[in-house]
């Protein structure tokens, strides 16, 4: 298997984190993974994105210009990366933030009201986890269980209190699709 995914949004939306979680979860499942941030002279509130590749064989290029899946967390990201989805690929749109619809008809589009769902759970910053849950469920790139385990390993000590709400967000995202 080979899954190439671009995650894009505003700085602060947890975009790089979502990418890292896909990579970490894939890694924990024994797959080859790469995570590559777009880095550059960015503005506060500007766009951030990262490329993640999960594969069961050696990974070539880690920088993606086209991808099997794109997760768009804000409108500029949708505009920038809708065309990057490979034919037959998947586009995940954070519809809490993005009011426009996708224009492509040769891909599958999923509108995830991520922030609203996260707020209902009481984890206002968990929109990225909701869309991550939806992504994992639809693509099967990594299992939901791997993500839950990862959350438990990531939030320890003082931060252990965030485990349940983040898992709840991932679960809720998976149930939306």
């Amino acid at each position, binding site marked *: 298997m080979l899954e190439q995914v671009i995650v894009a949004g505003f700085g602060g939306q947890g975009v790089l984190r979502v990418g890292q979680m896909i990579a970490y979860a894939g890694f924990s499942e024994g797959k080859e*993974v790469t995570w590559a*941030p777009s*880095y*550059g002279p960015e503005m506060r509130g500007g766009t951030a994105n990262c490329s993640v590749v999960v594969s069961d064989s*050696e990974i*070539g*290029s*880690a*920088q993606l*210009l086209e991808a099997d899946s794109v997760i768009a967390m804000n409108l500029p990201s949708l505009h920038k990366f809708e065309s990057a989805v490979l034919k037959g690929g998947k586009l995940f749109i954070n519809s809490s933030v993005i009011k426009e619809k996708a224009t492509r008809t040769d891909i599958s589009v999923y509108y995830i009201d991520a922030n609203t769902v996260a707020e209902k759970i009481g984890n206002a910053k968990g929109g990225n986890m909701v869309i991550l849950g939806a992504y994992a469920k639809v693509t099967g790139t990594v299992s939901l269980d791997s993500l839950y385990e990862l959350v438990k390993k990531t939030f320890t000590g003082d931060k252990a209190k965030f485990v349940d709400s983040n898992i709840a967000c991932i679960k809720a995202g998976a149930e939306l699709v």
Partner: protein
Amino acid sequence: MAKKLMKGNEAIAQAAINAGATHFFGYPITPQSELIEFMAREMPKVGACFLQAESEVAASYMVYGAAGAGARVITSTSSPGLALKQEGLTYMVSAELPAVIVNISRGGPGLGNILPQQGDYFMCTRGGGNGDYYHPCFAPASVQECADLIVEAFDIADEYRMPVLVLGDGMIGQMMEPVEIPEYKKYVPNKPWAADGNHIARGVHNRINAMDLAADVLEAKNNKIQAKLKEISEKYVKYESIDVEDADLVLVAYGTPSRACKNVLKKAKEEGLKVGLIRPISLYPFPKVAFDKINPKCKAILAVEQSCGQMIEDVRLSVLGKYPVEFFGRTGGNPIIPEQVFEKVKNILGGTK
């Protein structure tokens, strides 16, 4: 250590610490800042010295001083910073001092930009300072290779009393991959030549010196440096070679572009084209021997670089006119796109331009 996900910059730093680095001197510059940040945080934990210098020039002479005193020392920077460090580098070669220098290269010339580029090939492989010298230069293409090459670089530096450079581009520094770092080993110096304060016990003062006024003395030193380089050139040639024996076209690329070339190989196979790859890991010594194994009927060699074409000169010197050598390059920090390389491959093999 167990395998974990790390950025190239972090893996280099952790590998250097685990290789027993006793001293780090450097100055922050993107895209290698995670490396110096990691060192600042982690080196004191093992009793090693981290010092942020006031400039790259100062850092390179701190390296010179520490190396002269017998320390296991490393510095890291990015392209414009390495240009500033060149004076210290040529002095280290002259004074026969071991050190590891890391360059996580970025766009140039000048201050350029902070995106990955490979425009430092000449500076890193030709002896970027004054005088007659080269030094070993290794180019990792994965995070694991970052760690492995750093550990080996320290040993080669000590073996030959010479600075060793590790050249990664910005993407190698920034990307995360699974990596296993060798376990921490405390460094036990065995450097009877060092100016380490033990002159009374030793009975002689060791001199660390980069100046020899007498012609014959300086010529002897030059000969010694060249002899060391000759031995290194025989012993530390490193490369990866894929499917070159029956290839109609062979790609040559190092670092990040070599990964894009692996995508090209896959595409070529799908379309029934015979394309091979030579990935130099040691840039100095350049793996000339890898080119001897290429299919004699190979139609062309294609050098792929994130530069205007620098490594291609070593490629030409390796094939000596036996095959036509073509070039594909991008600059400004633009990535090498597999599809574009593949188009070029098809054009060459199809005979159209």
